[in-house]
C-alpha cells in the first residue's frame, strides 16, 4: 500500500476533472451556437408559417463547413447525448474522489477507470481518455504492485488461477454429494426448495417492479420522442417508436421558445417561484419560531385557529382574493393597461402557508430546549439563536419546504389564469407555464394540432424540474418521505 501512489492517483484524477469540465463546456457552447443557427419559418401576415416547417431544408454554415438539415440534427443530438453522459459522470467522480479512502481502492476501481477512458474517447475527449488510462495503470500498480509490463504478463496466470479455483469448487461439491446421510440429504433438499421459492419470489418482485416502472417511464419516453418528431411523424396513424438521431428535430424547441414565447413564460414562472419561495421561507421561519419557542399568552389558541383554517378548501379563498387584488381592493389587476402589477398579485397571497408553519414548528420543537438555555447563558439573543442554531439544525426541513414550494409554483394554474385573464393582451405576457401550455393554440389553421410542438413545450417545461430533481435527489426524496411522517 504505497500512499504516494494513492495520492498520485487522486491528483491525476483532479487534473482529469478539469479536462472533463472543459469538454462539457465545449459541448454546451457548440450546442448553443448551432442552436442559434437553426432556421425558423418565415413570418407571413404577422404569424409564423409553421406549415412550412416540415418542408424546410436549409443548409447551415459553421466554422467554414456546411451542413444539411439532417446533419445538423445529428450533431446537435450527439452533443446532447455527450452532455447528458458527461455531466453526471463528472459530478459522481468528483464526489467519489473526495470521499474515497486508501482502503477503497481495488482492481475494480482500475477497471472502472479504464471503462471511463473508453467513454471519454467516444466523447471526443482524448486528453481525459489518455489521463485516465495512465491513472488505470497507476492504480493497478498500487493494488497489485505491478507496473504495466508485469500486468500484461500476469493476465494469463490470473486466468489460469481462476480456472483452477473453479475446478476445485466443483470437486468439493461432488464430494459433498457422496454423503449418503439421510438427514443431510433431506435437509439439503428442503434448502434447495426454499432457495427455489425464494428465487421465484425475488423474480416475481422484480417483474412487478419492472412492469410498474415501465408504466411510469413510458409517458416520459413518449414525450421526449414526440417532441423531436416532425408534424407528419407526430400525427401519423402509425407512429414510430424510435427515430434516428438525424431526425431529431431540435428546431421544434426553438419554435416553442421563441415564436410561442415559452422562453418568456418560463422566465415568469421562475420569477414567481423564486420570490414566492423566498417570501415563504422568511415568514415561515419567523412564525414557526414564534409558535415554537416564544412564550406568549394565547399561543396555543392562536395556533389551533390556524390549524382549523387548514381544512378549508383553497377555492374559497380564491373568490375573495380575486376581489381583494382587483379594482375594489388593492388594485393590482383589472386596471387599465400599464397600471397592473401582475407579479405582485401572483406572489403576495401565497407567501405564507399554514401547513409549512406547522411542519417547521414541529421540527423546531424537537430541538432540545437546553440548547436555548445554553445560548442564553452565553448572551445570545433570540434572533441570533434562531438564525445561527435553529435554522441550521432544521435545514433539511427548510429545504423540503423550499422544494415543495417550488413544485407548487411550477404547477400553479388557476390563480395565474384568473389574474392574467382580466388583463387581456397585457395579461397574456404574464402567463405562467401551465397557462401557456393549456391556452396556447398549437394548431395549424385552427384545425390540426401540431402535437410535436405541443409536446415539445411540455418537455421544455418538465426538463428544468428534472434537472433540479436529479441534482438534489436524495434530499428531495428523504424530505418528502419525512414530511409525510409528520403525521
Amino acid at each position, binding site marked *: 500500500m504505497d500512499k504516494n501512489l494513492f495520492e498520485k492517483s487522486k491528483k491525476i484524477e483532479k487534473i482529469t476533472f478539469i479536462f472533463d469540465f472543459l469538454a462539457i463546456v465545449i459541448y454546451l457552447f457548440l450546442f448553443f451556437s448551432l442552436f442559434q443557427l437553426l432556421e425558423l419559418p418565415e413570418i407571413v401576415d404577422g404569424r409564423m408559417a409553421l406549415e412550412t416547417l416540415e418542408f424546410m431544408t436549409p443548409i447551415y454554415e459553421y466554422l467554414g463547413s456546411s451542413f444539411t438539415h439532417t446533419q445538423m440534427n445529428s450533431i446537435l443530438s450527439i452533443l446532447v447525448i455527450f452532455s447528458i453522459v458527461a455531466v453526471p459522470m463528472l459530478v459522481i467522480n468528483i464526489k467519489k474522489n473526495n470521499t474515497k479512502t486508501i482502503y477503497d481502492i481495488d482492481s475494480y476501481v482500475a477497471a472502472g477507470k479504464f471503462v471511463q477512458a473508453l467513454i471519454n474517447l467516444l466523447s471526443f475527449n482524448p486528453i481525459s481518455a489518455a489521463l485516465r488510462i495512465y491513472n488505470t495503470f497507476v492504480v493497478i500498480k498500487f493494488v497489485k504492485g505491478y507496473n504495466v509490463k508485469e500486468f500484461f504478463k500476469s493476465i494469463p496466470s490470473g486466468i489460469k488461477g481462476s480456472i483452477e479455483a473453479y475446478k476445485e469448487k466443483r470437486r468439493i461439491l461432488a464430494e459433498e454429494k457422496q454423503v449418503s446421510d439421510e438427514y443431510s440429504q433431506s435437509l439439503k433438499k428442503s434448502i434447495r426448495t426454499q432457495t427455489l421459492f425464494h428465487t421465484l419470489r425475488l423474480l416475481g418482485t422484480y417483474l412487478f417492479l419492472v412492469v410498474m416502472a415501465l408504466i411510469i417511464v413510458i409517458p416520459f419516453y413518449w414525450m421526449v420522442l414526440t417532441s423531436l418528431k416532425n408534424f407528419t411523424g407526430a400525427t401519423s396513424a402509425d407512429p414510430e417508436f424510435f427515430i434516428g438521431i438525424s431526425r431529431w428535430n431540435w428546431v421544434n424547441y426553438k419554435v416553442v421558445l421563441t415564436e410561442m414565447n415559452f422562453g418568456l413564460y418560463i422566465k415568469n414562472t421562475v420569477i414567481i417561484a423564486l420570490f414566492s419561495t423566498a417570501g415563504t421561507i422568511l415568514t415561515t421561519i419567523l412564525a414557526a419560531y414564534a409558535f415554537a419557542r416564544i412564550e406568549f399568552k394565547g399561543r396555543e389558541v392562536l395556533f389551533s385557529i390556524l390549524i382549523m383554517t387548514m381544512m378549508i378548501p383553497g377555492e374559497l379563498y380564491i373568490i375573495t382574493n380575486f376581489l381583494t387584488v382587483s379594482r375594489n381592493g388593492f388594485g393590482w389587476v383589472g386596471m387599465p393597461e400599464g397600471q397592473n402589477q401582475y407579479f405582485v398579485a401572483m406572489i403576495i397571497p401565497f407567501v405564507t402557508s399554514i401547513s409549512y408553519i406547522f411542519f417547521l414548528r414541529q421540527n423546531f420543537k424537537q430541538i432540545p430546549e437546553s*440548547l436555548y438555555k*445554553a445560548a442564553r447563558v452565553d*448572551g445570545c439573543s433570540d434572533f441570533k439563536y434562531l438564525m445561527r442554531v435553529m435554522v441550521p439544525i432544521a*435545514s433539511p426541513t427548510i429545504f423540503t419546504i423550499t422544494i415543495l414550494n417550488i413544485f407548487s409554483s411550477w404547477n400553479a394554474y388557476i390563480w395565474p389564469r384568473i389574474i392574467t385573464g382580466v388583463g387581456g393582451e397585457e395579461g397574456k405576457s404574464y402567463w405562467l407555464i401551465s397557462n401557456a401550455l393549456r391556452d396556447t393554440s398549437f394548431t395549424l389553421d385552427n384545425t390540426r394540432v401540431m402535437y410535436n410542438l405541443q409536446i415539445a413545450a411540455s418537455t421544455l417545461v418538465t426538463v428544468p424540474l428534472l434537472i433540479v430533481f436529479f441534482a438534489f435527489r436524495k434530499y428531495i426524496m428523504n424530505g418528502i418521505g419525512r414530511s409525510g411522517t409528520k403525521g
Partner: protein
Amino acid sequence: MELRLENLTKIFTNKNGQETKAVDKLDITIESGTLVALLGPSGCGKSTTLFMISGLVKPTSGKIFFGEDDVTKLAPEKRGIGLVFQNYALYPHMTVFKNILFPLENMDVPRDEAFERVKEMANLVGIGELLDRKPSQLSGGQQQRVAIARALVKKPRVLLLDEPLSNLDARLRLQMREEIKRIQRETGITTIFVTHDQEEAMSISDKMVVLDFGAEQQYTAPQEMYNNPANLFVAKFLGNPPINTFEAEVKSGNLLINDKKFMSAKVPDGEYIIGMRPENFRVDDQGFEINVKEVFHVGRDTMIHFDFNETNVRALVDSESMTNKADKVKLIIKPSKVYIFEKETGKVLNHE
C-alpha cells in the same frame, strides 16, 4: 469570586394553584476558588438552586451575591457564569471549535484573541486535537469536556455544572471527576456542581451542601460531614454501605441495646435513634456479644448481619478477623463513632 446566597427561596405554583417549595431559605457563603457540591436526593431542589444562581430561574425571595454585586435581578448573560448542562447542550451542527467559540462571539473580544482562547481552553480540558470534529463524532467524555471548555472560555466568575457525570458510564465517571477537579484547580474558578451521587461529591469537592426538600441540612467539608453528620438525614445519605440506624432507649445515662447496657450516654433519658457505621465495628474479645444472623464474605471485607433492638444491623470487618461461622461474636465500636439522634428532629446530639 465569592458567592453568597441569602435566604434564597423558590416556590412553584402549578396550574391548579398548588404550591411546591423547591428551595427553602437557603443561606450559604461559598468561598472563592472552591469546588462545592450540591448534594441530595431527587427533587431536593439542588438543580433549582443551581439555575437560580445562573439566572435562568427567578427566586421567589432572597438574594444572590457575586462578590459584592447583587445579581438577583440580573439577566443570566450579564452575570458572568458558565453553565454545563446535564446533556451538554452542544450545538450539533457546529464543530467543536465553533461550539467553544460561540460565547465569545457575543462578547467584546478581538477575533485573534478569541481564537487563542478557544485553543487554550481546548488544550486545558484535553481535547486540543478534536477541534474539527462535530459533537456526534465524539464520545460522551469528550463531549463533556467540550461543554466545560465552552463554559470556561468566557472566563466566568462562577462555573456551574448540572449533574455532570450522570450521563457517563461507570469507569468514565471515575476518570472525569478527577478531570473536573484538575481543571478547577488549574483555573481557580469558584465551581458549584449538582449531583445525587454522594461518593462522587465526597471524592472531589472541597465542601458539600446537602439539601433535603429545599432546606440546607449541612454545609462543610466532605470528610467532616461524614464523620460528624449534623442530622440523621445527612448521616443516612453519606456512606456506602449505609449507616445502621435503630431505636434505643437511654436510661440513667446508659444506652441500652438488646436490653443490655452498651455504653454511657451524656444525654437525657428517653427514646433516641442510634446510628453506627458498619465499618466502625471491630471484632474484639472485650466487646459486646451479638448473635450472628448471616455472614457475607466479599474479598477483603466481611459483612456480619445481626440484630440490635430487633433491627437488622450490618458490621463490616476484616475477613481475617472473622474466619469461621461462629454463632456469637464480640464487637466493639468507639463511642465517638456512635451517633445519637433526636427522634423527632433527627438532629445529632452527641457531636458538635
